[in-house]
Structure formats: C-alpha cells, structure tokens
C-alpha cells in the first residue's frame, strides 16, 4: 500500500464494488454515482473489467466529495464484496478503519491477515433479496443501500433512482428493489464498528453532467454538426458508436456500423467529399486497419476526424485496460508525409471541447484530425459542470457548398476552370462540394496537379508544389490549435516541473494538490495538441527547471522522446507504467515528493 496523502479528516470517500461479471457491478456503481451527483456531490468513477460477458472479476469504484474530484485514488474507504474474490483481490486497498461490506454467507474474512484494521460490515445480501422475493441480481441493490447507510446519506436518492429506473416495469419490480435497498440501508446504518465518514447532500445542488469520455466526445460531435459517424465495434470506442446510434434520428446523423474499420475510414472520407462533417473512432487495432485510408485523407485533403482510443496493446493486447502507447503510432501512421493534427483530451470536459474544435480544424485545414484518447477517458464517468454549449462554433473554412464556383474567382485557374488543389496562400484551397455548378474535379489518392489529375502528378515540379502546399498547412495549424495548459507553480520557482499528455493530467492534478499542501512546489504542463508539437512552449517550460519529469503510460517514453526530438532538451526523469492501469495520484505523489527532495 503506497502512502495515502489524503487528509485523515476529509470530505471525500472512495467506494469500490466488486463481484463476478454478470452481477450488475457496473450498473450498481453508476447508480451510486448518480445518487451522489443528484445530491450535489462530485464523483469520479473507475471501472475495471475483463474482456468477458459472464465470469471473471469486475470492479467499479466511485470517488465522491463535496469538492470537485479530478481523479480516482488508489485507497478505498468502503469495499463492497459481492463475492470472496473481491476481498482477496482488493482488501489491501482498504484504508485503516475502512469498511468492508460483505455477505457472511458467500464471503469470509477468516483468511485476512489484518482483520483488525477494517470495519467489518456483514450484510446478508442473499437473505434480504430472498425475503423480498427478488432475483439474485438484486444483491447489488442491497449493497448500495448498505453503502448509503454507512455514510448516513439519505436513502431517498437511491429509492427515487430505482423507481425511475424501473418505471416501465410492473410496479412490484421497483417496490421489490426499494425493499431490498431499505433493508441494506438498515444494516449499513446500524453497523457496530466505528466508520468515521459521512456524506451529506448539498441543500441547493448545482447542475452537473455525469458523463464518460465517449459520451463527451459524442456530444461534442453532435454539437459540431456531425453528419456521418462510421465505426466497427472495438473496446474502448464501442460505446461511442452506441451513443451516436442512439441519437441518430433525433439529431439527423447517419450512423453506420461498417463491415470493418477500413470501410469506416473510407466511408467517412466519402462522406466528407460530399460535404458532411464526418468522423470515425476506434482503438489502436482498428486504427491499424484505417491507416492506409488515413493517408488518403491526407493526400486527398479530406476534412475528417478520427478518434483513436488507446487500450493496452499490441494486437488484441489487454482489450479493456488503458495505456498511452499509441502516441507515436498516430504521429507517424501511414506511408509518406502529410499534415495531421493530433489532439489529446485530458478529461471529459476537454473531450467535449476538443471534439467540436477538431471538426473546425479539419475543415479549416482540409486534413485529418486525430482525437487521441484512452480507456481511462472513454470508460469512466466523472461529474463536471455542464459542457459549455454556447461556446461551440462552426467554421467550415474555405468551403463552397452550393451555388456556382465561377462566382469564386479565387478558386479558378487561368482557364476559368475550378482548381480543387490550387497552390498558393496558406496551402488551403477552396473546396467546392459535388453539386456546386462548375465544380468538376478529381479528388485523388494519387499525387495530382491543381485540377486533381493524377497523370501530371509525376512531374517533379507538380509533386513539389502539391507536397509543399500540403505540408505548409502545418504552419497554419500552429496558429489554430489549442496551446498547452499549465497548472500549479510557475516553472521558475517550482521544485519539480512535470509534463504529461492526455488523461494522466487527472491523477497528476490530484497529486500536485497534495504536494502543494505538503510544501513541494510542482509546475505541471499538459500538452493538449500533440501535433504540430508545441516546441517553443515545451522548451520554454523546461528551460532552467531544477528537476524535470515526464509521466506517461507507455514503456518506451514516447512523449519524452518526442520532447528530445523536437526541443533538443532531455527531461531528467520519468515515471511510466504499462500494466493496463491508469496512474494513480498516490504513485505520482510519492515519485514527485522523492524527486523534489533530490539535490
């Protein structure tokens, strides 16, 4: 067990529910978070599950606090064990005095070496469910009741939620569940051991959105006016396909589950040619299949958005676990050279914002934009202030969607014909959609001339002009992409300067909050746009730092290498992991404390 840097007397708790797949672990955890958020509290969930539908071990944890929660933590305050395995696997994560909720009929504490340090809360889940005449799956409801009882949080949030959840079923289903929850609550609230924490709802709860990263990306895409979404199922991107499919008719989107990822990416490119805002998303494995067409988007100057949501690889890898190992892959994917933009959201709020921004960047630059996420982002719900819908803008760049192209002289050649790939200016040509009068053209996977004809693409001067035009768009991109974000101390005065990308920002933010409290000054930089790389900003951040460190979820130090390559500066130290788990803030706290005390 690492250090638990949380204050002993604290307002926040973390609850973990574990059991076999098929026990309703995820549903229970999500219900718990909903109860807290409806009471005005803040939550951060972490789900752990194997790539199985039944059997195997599932765990779902909810961190809850009256203050905004930026990350999960490692330490558990309440462990709910729906089977023995949960106790065996997770008891060491329990803090001293933490509660262990279990059914003595199905789980035993006998084997625990440190029984005395936990507050044992036996709750007869099985008997409660049987008494109520319910189904075995309802044991998770009894467990939820017990958790709320332990924390003395009003039961009504749970019973209201159950009644809403089962509103379409016969009324006795909801009432059975309510009876089970109530019994569980009685057991939890009347426990004989001293559980020191309680949770109280806020009197006037602010509005919040409880969303995971895929829901945030989906909302961002919808807000941006997406017309077509294509995908082939692959964890952790699948739930984005489900979200888009559930909203297709309501919002006028064509959502296509394609025969494979190759089709998804090519279909999106075809839809973009037709003028739709179009997106596909997948995990690294699916992106491997999309790569050739990703290059097609580059040379054909297609405005597409591609979600690449990393799970631990390679190949099938660890399907349901997280990693940050696809950074170099998306930076280099596809043969040849073409401009691309890679954005890495660090949390659900950024996932929403960067998604709608990605559509603007794709249109402004007429080139593919990657949203680089991971399982930790996609799968895990976090309560956040409602996403800023009013801030969403649509900028389609140099697009002519209807009318006659001849009224756009800047798009025409000396012969009066439309030039799809006209050279000049910032490298972005006027894009006339099929349907525009005079817009005959060839959008081409071959190198091509200004008309788009491949026959002339082999002429060296034509090749150079087109390649330079395309690559030149990166300079425009630099002026449009979101800059890095800075947190904590200024790098001039910091004891240690830390660089992260993507979701590692979340545990890092929690860690530096503790470190500040404990007197260590940490400067944190989150790189948001991975490409074009913010070389100047990173170099300035690292310049003159006493101790610098890169934290990233991969073996080879992909970001660290990129910093060396682009900035000619070597960060001094690093923290990496590749075991499928996200960084936890305790681990980052320990590392940074150690580094900050070095000479």
């Amino acid at each position: 067990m690492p250090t638990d840097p949380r204050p002993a007397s604290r307002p926040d708790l973390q609850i973990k529910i574990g059991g076999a797949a098929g026990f309703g672990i995820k549903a229970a955890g999500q219900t718990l978070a909903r109860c807290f958020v409806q009471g005005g509290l803040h939550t951060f969930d972490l789900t752990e599950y194997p790539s199985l539908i039944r059997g195997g071990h599932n765990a779902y944890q909810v961190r809850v606090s009256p203050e905004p929660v930026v990350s999960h933590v490692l330490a558990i305050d309440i462990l709910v064990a729906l089977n023995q395995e949960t106790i065996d696997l997770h008891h060491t994560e329990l803090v001293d005095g933490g509660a262990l909720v279990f059914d003595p009929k199905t789980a035993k504490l006998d084997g625990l070496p440190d029984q005395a340090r936990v507050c044992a809360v036996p709750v007869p889940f099985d008997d409660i469910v049987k008494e109520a005449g319910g189904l075995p799956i309802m044991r998770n409801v009894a467990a939820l009741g017990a958790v709320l009882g332990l924390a003395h949080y009003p039961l009504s949030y749970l019973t209201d939620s159950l009644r809403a959840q089962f509103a379409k079923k016969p009324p006795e289903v909801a009432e059975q569940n309510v009876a089970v929850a109530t019994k569980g609550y009685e057991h939890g609230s009347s426990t004989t051991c001293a559980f020191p924490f309680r949770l109280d709802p806020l009197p006037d709860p602010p509005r919040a959105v409880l969303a995971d990263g895929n829901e945030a990306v989906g909302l961002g895409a919808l807000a941006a006016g997406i017309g077509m979404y294509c995908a082939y199922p692959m964890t952790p991107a699948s739930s984005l396909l489900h979200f888009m499919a559930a909203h297709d008719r309501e919002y006028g989107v064509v959502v296509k589950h394609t025969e494979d990822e190759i089709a998804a990416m090519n279909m999106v490119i075809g839809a973009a040619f037709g003028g739709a805002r179009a997106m596909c998303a997948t995990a690294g494995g699916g992106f491997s299949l999309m790569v050739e067409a990703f290059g097609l988007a580059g040379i054909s100057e297609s405005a597409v958005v591609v979600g690449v949501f990393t799970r631990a690889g390679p190949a099938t890898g660890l399907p349901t676990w997280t990693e940050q190992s696809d950074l170099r892959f998306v930076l280099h994917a596809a043969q040849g050279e073409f401009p691309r933009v890679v954005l890495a959201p660090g949390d659900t709020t950024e996932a929403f914002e960067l998604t709608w921004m990605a559509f603007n960047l794709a249109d402004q630059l007429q080139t593919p934009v990657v949203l680089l996420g991971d399982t930790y982002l996609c799968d895990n719900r976090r309560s956040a202030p409602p996403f800023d819908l009013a801030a969403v803008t649509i900028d389609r760049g140099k697009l002519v969607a209807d009318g006659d192209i001849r009224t756009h002289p800047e798009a025409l050649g000396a012969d009066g014909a439309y030039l799809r790939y006209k050279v000049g200016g910032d490298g972005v040509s006027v894009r006339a959609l099929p349907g525009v009068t005079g817009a005959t053209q060839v959008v081409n996977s071959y190198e091509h001339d200004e008309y788009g004809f491949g026959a002339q693409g082999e002429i060296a001067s034509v090749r150079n002009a087109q390649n330079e035009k395309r690559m030149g768009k990166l300079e425009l991109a630099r002026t449009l992409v979101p800059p890095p974000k800075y947190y904590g101390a200024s790098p001039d005065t910091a004891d240690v300067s830390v660089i992260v990308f993507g979701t590692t920002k979340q545990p890092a933010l929690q860690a530096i909050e503790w470190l500040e409290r404990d007197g260590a000054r940490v400067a944190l930089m989150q790189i948001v746009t991975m490409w074009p790389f913010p070389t100047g900003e990173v170099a300035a951040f690292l310049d003159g730092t006493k101790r610098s460190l890169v934290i990233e979820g991969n073996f080879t130090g992909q970001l660290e290498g990129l910093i060396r390559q682009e900035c000619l500066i070597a960060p001094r130290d690093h923290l990496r992991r590749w075991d499928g788990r996200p960084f936890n803030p305790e681990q980052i706290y320990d590392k940074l404390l150690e580094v900050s005390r070095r000479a």
Partner: protein
Amino acid sequence: MPDVKEFETANRPTWCPGCGNFGMWQALKQAYQEVGWSFEELAVVWGIGCHGNGADFTRCQGFHALHGRALPVATGLALSNPDLHVVVEMGDGDGYGIGLGHFAHACRRNIDVTVIVHDNQIYGLTTGQASPTTEQFMKTISTPDGVLEEPVNTLGLAIAEGATFVARGFSADPAHLTALMVAAMRHRGFAVVDVFQPCVTWNKLNTATWFRDRVYKVDETGHDPYDKNAAFALSLSTYHDLSCSPDECRLPIGVIYQEEGRATYGDGLPQLTGPLWRQALRPRDVSAAMGRLG
C-alpha cells in the same frame, strides 16, 4: 444535359491500344448522355488499376480512391448527399480481390449506387499477375504453375448477397453495353455491371476473339431476369475450363438478375432528408442529450 464529348478532359487515355477500357469508356460516356444527369448530379468514384486512370480522362465530380476501397468511399458519398447519383468504376483485382468484403456488404445494403466492373481477369497495372477472376489453372507471372483457386463467381456472389440489378457486358459490344449501363444507372438500388474486358497485354487467353466466340445475349434466349433461381443458375454457367471449345463454353451477357421495389439502404434513414452539409450550418443544440446523461 451534357453530351458525350463534354465528359472528356484534356487528358488523352493512356490505355494500351486495343484495351477493352476504350470500349467501356465510350459506352459509359454514351450512357451518361442517355441517362441525362447534369454535371452537378453525377459523381464517380474509381478504385486503383488501369480502369482507374479513367479518372484523369473523365470530366465529372470524381474521387480516385484507394485500391479496393472505391465502394466504401462511394457509400459515404451517396449517404452524405441523396441528391447525387453515384457511379463506381472498379477492377476485378480491385473489387473482387482486396475489396471483395466491401463488395459483398455493398450488395447486402442495396445502396443506390451503380458499379461498373472492368473485369479483365488479370492484374494489368501491376504487370500481369493472377486476379480473383483469372481462369483456374491459367499460368501468370505470379502463378507460373497455374492458378489453383476457382475464379470468383462474381454474378452469383452479387445475386446471393442482395444486389438488385446484376448484369454482364462485353466491351467489344458497346451498344449492348451502353444499354446495360443505362439500365443499371436508372435502377434504384445496388446495380452491378460486370464487363468482360480483354487485356491485350497480359491476358493472352481471354482475348476479344475468345469472348466473341463464346458470348450470347440472354434476352435472346428468353431468360427472365426477375427469376432469381434462373439468374443464379446462369451465374454458375459461366464456369469453363481453359481448353473448352466455343460450343462448350457459352458466356451469357445481358441483365442476369433484376428486382424492383426492394428498399434501399437510404430508405431506412428517415433522418436523411437532404445533403448532410446542411446539418453543420450552425451548432446543434444538444442540451436535451446532455440533460439525459448520467
């Protein structure tokens, strides 16, 4: 309405003299004129292969896609703008080899796209390797001991997977081919015209003469293209061996299978009421969807 000449660009075709692509190109331009779509309505997607060089010669709203991937690009394009008429040109290696999966699924979804296949039974642009429709046992540079696989039954596959218009043409009979192309373009749903197209450089077996001696028009034999079983039986009849005489090998050309009234993929999308670019004129109000989260 544009006429035949208007479908030509300043680029002259670079196909080998005698290539079947010339006859197909003539027929296609003629078909475009007869169908009468405006330049604004017609969009063409090509795969990669000798046929794909037609992208340089054909004046239209065109997309020269990747090898084997013309169909998904065309599918995305067709769904993004229901006002367009989308035509795909692809090759046998392109469409039945690397792109076979897309072909089968495009048939299933009966998307309203017309596909013209340049089926010369050989890889032309990559210098003469065996294609998925090369005759079994034929020797090629990639199969010096002969092709071991059966050729893909292209027509049977299309019928089995749900294409609603399946025809076969012959590049050296442009009037007949034009009529097939026009019928395919006017058909509402997924229409395939597989075209026998001699490759004069690499395929010394399936020459124009070889085909002329063997093809016959199914409409002259009383074939009913609305009879699915008869159509499927006809698709099986195209198999033959390398040494078969013109009497033994009879190759049907014409409309093999046709079905009217089946719902297209787009018919299942009530949300698709016009070009999808109109969905991005202003930010969508997603407050309702956001309010339901959690």
